[in-house]
């Protein structure tokens, strides 16, 4: 009988313990990005642009060169990084409060221009770091500290479905929404992250991947309940799928 290592930490993930709450799936999301980049031997060429939110300390957890962007401005910062270093692999890692609220203009324009970057968007339907306020992606009826009676569609509107919106913009080569709540969805997420980087490497346009994740603390649930909530409530509002994927041989000017 021989014993082989079936799963261990990928070298680009630092040993530093994360500050995330128990059950927070940020750890899974950024680990999967690091696993892809290590598998493709791209770690040395990667520059990540981190954002504001619970993922703000990402530069302590992933061993890539990084730039910390002002709140919401990661796609604009990444545009600059990629344009001066077009041979680098550039990705942004943003939460929903960062990308879909204060950073809405930046993501819309970067996507429309078709910047050759990858956007990893972690959607947990709430502002995590600041204490659970209503985010643009908060579900209708979801209670948050700023919508104690639940989000009302007629006064606050319906949640933004970013993967679909971004897919509708001309410069986007790949846009998908995946979840991190079970092993089957993790396999889909791995595939989507790979495609989101492949379109950047092929110079085809922006790769966008939305990852549905839990926020047990601000949802006021246990991690296991929050994980079940993804399947029961989040996925029905935010359907999973690939919303745009241009052909592999499609060129760019």
């Amino acid at each position, binding site marked *: *009988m*021989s*014993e*082989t*290592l*079936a*799963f*261990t*930490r990928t070298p680009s*993930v630092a040993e530093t*313990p*994360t500050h*995330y*709450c*128990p*059950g*927070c*799936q*940020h*750890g*899974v999301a950024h*680990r999967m990005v690091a696993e892809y980049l290590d598998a493709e031997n791209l770690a040395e060429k990667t520059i990540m642009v981190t954002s504001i939110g619970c993922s703000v300390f990402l530069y302590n957890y992933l061993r890539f060169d990084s730039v910390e962007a002002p709140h919401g401005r990661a796609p604009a910062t990444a545009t600059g990084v990629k344009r001066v270093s077009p041979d680098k692999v550039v990705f942004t890692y943003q939460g929903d409060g960062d990308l879909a609220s204060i950073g809405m203009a930046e993501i819309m324009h970067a996507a429309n221009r078709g910047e050759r970057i990858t956007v990893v968007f972690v959607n947990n339907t709430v502002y995590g770091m600041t204490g659970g306020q209503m985010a643009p992606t908060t579900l209708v009826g979801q209670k948050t500290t700023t919508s104690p009676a639940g989000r009302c569609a007629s006064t606050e509107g319906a949640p933004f479905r970013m993967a679909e919106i971004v897919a509708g913009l001309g410069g986007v080569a790949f846009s998908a929404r995946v979840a991190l709540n*079970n*092993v089957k969805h*993790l396999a889909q997420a791995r595939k989507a992250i790979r495609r989101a980087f492949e379109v950047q490497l092929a110079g085809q346009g922006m790769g966008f991947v939305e990852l549905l994740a839990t926020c*047990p603390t601000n949802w006021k649930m*246990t*991690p*296991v309940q929050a*994980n079940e909530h993804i399947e029961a409530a989040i996925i029905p509002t935010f359907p999973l799928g690939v919303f745009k994927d241009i052909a592999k041989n499609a060129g760019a000017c």
Partner: protein
Amino acid sequence: MSRIVLDEERCKGCLLCTVVCPKNILRQSSRMNAQGYKVAECAPELAEECTGCTACAQMCPDLAIVVWRTVKAKEASR
């Protein structure tokens, strides 16, 4: 027999590993780590059932689980 090595100091006791284990051999232990979290463990009496599928490790947000897979002699010789 495949096995997992769980780093109890990294574990935050979220128990997401326990819900994805196809053999249901993971559970909450009665031990607390230095962070004050009640950590998960592989039930010693059921440990032999581990298939090394890595579901728990993939689900773990804190990279607390390392999985060792044992290839049976019959399969290894193929």
